[in-house]
Structures are given as structure tokens and as C-alpha cells.
């Protein structure tokens, strides 16, 4: 397959369409707007093709709608998922905050959908520069109640497409919503990429509320209980599903960890910078390696536990927030190693030189 030069947000658009996207509902917000614009361009070009009597390029992509709000967008996604379609919304941090009510309902009703978060600086209106301050709201549940999202953290334009495609398959497989958590840098960055071969996995959706048709029983999409017992039962089913995902879907990248005594760990954009800093430190003879979580939930706790049991006693966490991801690293390390945090917040991406200095401080 040939290589293309593409922006991160455009790669998400192409990835979603290759994954069989049927409906997109969104609201513009920087730095994610190229996603809604890219889908609008392709959707309306197809309508023009149809008008000319030509075949559409994306026949599955039947509904594109710019909604009146983030709330309406996520609820339209809930509607589309309820009737068994592959649907997506995309936004950036403040918009994702607004969507949290809907995300909670979607998780409760076990509906598959893909939510893209191109993170900007917060809290509040913050800035349009990249940050990673939405880690907690993505990974720990930003809405009310007990639930989880499958969260992927790409660190390249290619992974923006690949993870979007994987999320469509996994959310259908497990009947649960998923989020692509990327910082604004990845959304806006252009680089050479190749579309990965992620085949569309088709899942039957006999639960979907499509109208009764030949069915004798109603399909109702709801999560409401008047007594505790059935709610305990339903929530236990959710919990068991989450445990299954934790057991099967953890993904991470390791780099030069075989003989490492020091571990650097980061996700998203800082993980690329950290990788380069690891190489530089290696040139200086420092035995250092990198762990990059690809799924933030389920989180790769075990790899941190294993590495710090006998091999590694110093861990450097690099992240673009006050330090949120570091808490999960500490849960994995469980005190077996010293965990240092290098936090760069406010929209600044840490440099190789800075990370190298932090590594050298640990030597």
C-alpha cells in the first residue's frame, strides 16, 4: 500500500470511513474541526455524485449532521448506536466535558460508538494548544456512575487512523463505547503514513431497536431500575464485561527495555519525544528503556509491575498535564521503584533535551 502525507485529523476521517462509518454527528471545536469538515466534504461530494447519477465513494456513510450542540451530537450518536449503526462524534476537551452525560448513558445501555477527543489545554476555555489533561475524564469515567471506555492513545498520524478503525471493531465486539484520546499536536500534525490493514469485523446486533419487524418481543435500549436487585444484576454484567476487556485488550509498546535499569514512560506526543531521548541516553551508555501504553483503559499495569519487580528501580513519567497518567503508573509500580514526574502543562510539548536531562538526573 502506498504512503500518503496526511494530517492527524484527516487520518481519523479516512480511518472511520474505511471502518464502515454510517453516521457522524458533531459540533465544531478547535483543534478537532478538520474531522467534521473532512467528513462534510466527503459526504456532500457523494451527494453530488448521486445527483449526477454516479456511484457514491462511501456508500455506507449515509448520515452526516452538524448538530446544535455537543449534547445533541452525543445523543444523536446514542440514537444511531441504538439502531445498530456504526456512528462517531469528534470534539475537543471542553466539548467532551459537555458530552459526558450522554457518554454515561451510552455506556450504561451498552452501545458501541467511537468518540474522538483531540485534547486542548484546560481547565475552562484554556487554550487551543495541546495538553493531556483529559486523561482522568477519559480513563476514570468523566460522567456519572460506574463505567469504562475503551481508550486508545495514538502517537502518530498512522495510529490516528489505525486506532479509529480498531475502536470500531472493539466497541462492536464488546458493545461498549470507546474513545480515541489524542492531543492537539497529533490532530494538527502532518506526516507520512500508510493505511493499516484493519479488516471490518461485522457483528450481529440482534439487540438493536430497529422496529419490531418479525420479532415478537420488544427491543428497548434503556438502563433504568425501580428496585436494587435487577440493577445489581445488570451492573454485574457490565463489570464482568469490563474485566473481560481488561484481560484481553491491553496494548502497549516497549522499546529497549531488555537490559534497562531506568524506565521512561509516556503516551501520545510526549512518548515520541521520550523515545528520541531514550536513544540519546543510550548513546551516553545509560541503560534506559520506554513503555508507551497504547490502551489507557485497559491500562497495562502488569508490565510496570513486572519490570519493577527485579529489573528497574527508577521510573520517569513524562506527561502534558499536572500529572494524571502518573497515578496509574504508580498503581502499577506499587512502590517497587522510585517514580519521578516530569510534567509540562499549559500547551508546551517537552523537548528531547529536557527529557534527556531528567533521565540523566536519575542515573
Amino acid at each position: 500500500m502506498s504512503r500518503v502525507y496526511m494530517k492527524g485529523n484527516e487520518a481519523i476521517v479516512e480511518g472511520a470511513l474505511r471502518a464502515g462509518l454510517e453516521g457522524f454527528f458533531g459540533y465544531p471545536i478547535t483543534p478537532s474541526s478538520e474531522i467534521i469538515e473532512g467528513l462534510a466534504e466527503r459526504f456532500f461530494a457523494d451527494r453530488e455524485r448521486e445527483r449526477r447519477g454516479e456511484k457514491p465513494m462511501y456508500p455506507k456513510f449515509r448520515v452526516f449532521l452538524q448538530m446544535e450542540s455537543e449534547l445533541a451530537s452525543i445523543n444523536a450518536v446514542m440514537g444511531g448506536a441504538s439502531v445498530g449503526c456504526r456512528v462517531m462524534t469528534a470534539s475537543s476537551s471542553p466539548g467532551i466535558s459537555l458530552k459526558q452525560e450522554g457518554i454515561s448513558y451510552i455506556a450504561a445501555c451498552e452501545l458501541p460508538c467511537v468518540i474522538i477527543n483531540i485534547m486542548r489545554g484546560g481547565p475552562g476555555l484554556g487554550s487551543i494548544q495541546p495538553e493531556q489533561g483529559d486523561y482522568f475524564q477519559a480513563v476514570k469515567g468523566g460522567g456519572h456512575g460506574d463505567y469504562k471506555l475503551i481508550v486508545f492513545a495514538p502517537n502518530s498520524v498512522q495510529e490516528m487512523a489505525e486506532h479509529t478503525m480498531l475502536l470500531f471493531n472493539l466497541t462492536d465486539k464488546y458493545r461498549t463505547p470507546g474513545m480515541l484520546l489524542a492531543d492537539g499536536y497529533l490532530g494538527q500534525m502532518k506526516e507520512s503514513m500508510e493505511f493499516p490493514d484493519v479488516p471490518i469485523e461485522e457483528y450481529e446486533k440482534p439487540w438493536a431497536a430497529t422496529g419490531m419487524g418479525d420479532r415478537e418481543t420488544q427491543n428497548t435500549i434503556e438502563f433504568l431500575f425501580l428496585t436494587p436487585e435487577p440493577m445489581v444484576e445488570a451492573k454485574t454484567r457490565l463489570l464482568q464485561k469490563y474485566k473481560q476487556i481488561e484481560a484481553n485488550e491491553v496494548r502497549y509498546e516497549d522499546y529497549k527495555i531488555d537490559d534497562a535499569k531506568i524506565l521512561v514512560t509516556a503516551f501520545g506526543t510526549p512518548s515520541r519525544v521520550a523515545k528520541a531521548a531514550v536513544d540519546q541516553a543510550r548513546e551516553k551508555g545509560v541503560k534506559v528503556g520506554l513503555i508507551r501504553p497504547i490502551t489507557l483503559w485497559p491500562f497495562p499495569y502488569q508490565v510496570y509491575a513486572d519490570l519493577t519487580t527485579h529489573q528497574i528501580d527508577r521510573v520517569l513519567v513524562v506527561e502534558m498535564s499536572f500529572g494524571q497518567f502518573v497515578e496509574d503508573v504508580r498503581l502499577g509500580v506499587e512502590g517497587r521503584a522510585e517514580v519521578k514526574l516530569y510534567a509540562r502543562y499549559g500547551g508546551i510539548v517537552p523537548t528531547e533535551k529536557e527529557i534527556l536531562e531528567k533521565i540523566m538526573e536519575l542515573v
Partner: protein
Amino acid sequence: MRVSALIPKYPEPETYMGHTHYCPGCGHATLHKLLGEVVDELGIRKRVIMIEPVGCSVLALKYLKFDGIQGPHGRAPAIATAVKRLRPESIVITYQGDGDLAAIGTNEIIHAANRGELFTVVFVNNAVYGMTGGQMAPTTLLGQKSTTTPTGRFAEFCGYPLRVCELLNTLDAPVYLERVSLFDVEHILKTRAALKKALLNQIEGRGFSLVEVLSNCPTNWKMTPEESWEFVKNEMTKVFPLGVFRDK
């Protein structure tokens, strides 16, 4: 000839299952029954996807036998938008109360109506939040007491009753907006006719239709059912005049 042969045979209701939990005298059960009858009459039950609100009618799908979705408070029109566009062959209904549609979901209903979404809205206006115990709704009348307006609703504190049909009638897209009521048999039959018309508009692809139904809440109004219907007839219709606002 046996006497039973003289009694006309009515078809068994297919959609309306009855046995509702509503308070004695509440309009919801009547309205559910009417909706069920119209759906049966039009033969569309197996195509219906209804979006339930948050409010007293949150369990409507336990009494009406078709598919459906229980959405967040006020968001039914956004859900219905996606459902109808992705499954255009289905018949999509939202059933919403006044707190749901006219307070927390004002944005969603206005924009769905403005886009001319091809679904049918059944809007129940009983001037109060019923399920949460009788708080002020956007449609509570001036002077009317509720648990959050214990001395009556005053315009200078909380504005005026919101007229949804009139508000939506300023938009270009809706094809049918009518306000009806359930306070006597004549008006119950008019409500039935309005529901049928609104669903036919969808079946025939004409556009967005909304039927506002003035209903009661004897429990929270602290009235007998009879008194509550008198209140709807004599007081509510003064503020919310019945009639067809749009029919194109």
C-alpha cells in the same frame, strides 16, 4: 339470535398493553391508549421506534408494545434525529413532558423542528414536574403553586409560561403543530385525530409534526381528577389556547 351476536367485535389492542403505574385520573394512560389505538389503526406498530423521556412516562415502553430508546432528559429529539435519518423506514415518535421538552430540552426540540426532522412529537403539557414531586415547569401558570413556587409563580421571579406551539410556529420547517387536550370526550377524540394526522404526516414523508396535549396532574396539583380537568379546561386553555397552529 343470541344477544352476543349483536355486540360488535372490536379488535384486540396490539400496541397498548395497559396496567399503567400512573396516578388515578392522570392523562398519561388515556394518551398512551390513544397512541396505541392510532398505531394499531395505521398498522405501523412493527415499524415504530419511540423515544421515552425522563419524567412520569419514562416507563411508557412497558405499556406500549413497540421498540424504543430511553434517552437522557430532554434529548429525545437529538436521538430521534439520528434514528430517523439512519433508519428512514421506521416510524419515530418522541413522547416528552414539559420539563423534558420545554426546559432542559428546549434547544433540542427547536433545532429538530427547525431542521424539519421527519418524526412525530407527542408533547404532554401538564404545567408541572410530575415525577420529581411537583416543582415548577416552564409551563406552570402565573399564580400557580408548586413546590418551588410555594406562594405561586410570579413573572418577575420566573418569567412567563412558555408556549411551545407558538414558539415553533415562528420556524419555517414544521408542517403540523396543534394543541389539543384531554379534558372531555370530545377533546379526547380530537387528540386521537391529531395523533393520527401527525403520524400520517410522517408516513407520507411530509415533515416535522408536534401535538401538544394539555393534560393534568391531580396528585401534584392537589386536586381530585374532576377538579384537575376543570382546571385544564378553564385555566390552562386561557394561557395555552387549543387549535391548529400550522398545517401545511
